[in-house]
């Protein structure tokens, strides 16, 4: 793959990267703010969010969050 191909694809790649990054940051901010998570291990959830591309943040948002005392915002 020559440099021209990467240069051509880059403008199309940027929105995809923005979506990935937005999900990652959103999940990480939620993880930091949340008092309790499933399994109790925030570091493990952090690793899942960061290391498993796109699916990691989704897994956390679907299954990782535990209700806070003030109310619920889990699925």
């Amino acid at each position, binding site marked *: 793959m020559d440099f021209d191909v990467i240069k051509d694809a880059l403008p*199309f790649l940027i929105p995809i990267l923005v*979506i990935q990054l937005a999900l990652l940051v959103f999940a990480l901010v939620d993880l930091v703010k949340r008092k309790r998570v499933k399994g109790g291990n925030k570091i493990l959830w952090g690793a899942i969010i960061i290391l498993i591309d796109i699916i990691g943040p989704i897994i956390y*948002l679907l299954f990782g969050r535990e209700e806070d005392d003030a109310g*619920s915002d889990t699925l």
Partner: protein
Amino acid sequence: MTGLGVLIKKEIREQLKTYRFLIMAGVFLFFGLSTPLLIKYLPELLELAGEDIIIELPPPTALQALQEYSDTILQVGILVVVLVTMGAVARERERGTAQMVLSKPVDRGAFVGAKLVGISLSFLVALGLASAASYIYTVMLLGEVDVGAFLALNLLLGLFFITAIAITLLFSSLFKNQLAAGGVALAFLVGQAVLTQIPWIGDYVPAALPGWGIGLLAGPHPAAWGAVAVSVVVIGVSLYLSRLKLSRTEI
């Protein structure tokens, strides 16, 4: 149905508050944007990975990109439907929030109906965003495709997913445990997809809808109006059975 309007508003707020809409939109947009890009650059990627091995591929086409997108969104969509719907009733019963809502003068049919409307709305908006994004990327990268056929495909996909949401809601009402509800719903949805392979019966199951839509992209395709009618009936019957179950059960 008493309280339907209020409950629909509550459900839509819930979709945003629990990030369900964000999850659906994020996942669908990711696949909507990445599929045409992957199809366009697949020959270069294979060349890069294969080194000396020569793999001859026909030039990628716009039709191929949208067919691939539809297949992907169908598989991912079914999983997302089950994951976000399986706890809709079961988990609320578990947590006690269903008791709180149903202790007010609210029809049980309205309770389930509002969930179907709320989840379907956020699902359809996410699907619409992803399909629009995928279409724009396909046109920019690979060329024109019949927009009318793509719209028809999306309408059929939408009806199929609403049917899948109604079926999952039914199992969520039948089971107290959301994982059991999700597992049985997924097995049921995969099972009826297998039925499409059986001649005659296959034209009448809801899973025939995406096949009809994907076929339309390539040109005229035999219609499956029977599957449209059966899907509408399945949605109605699922809502009725969910209401019946909730009416007969001590919440």
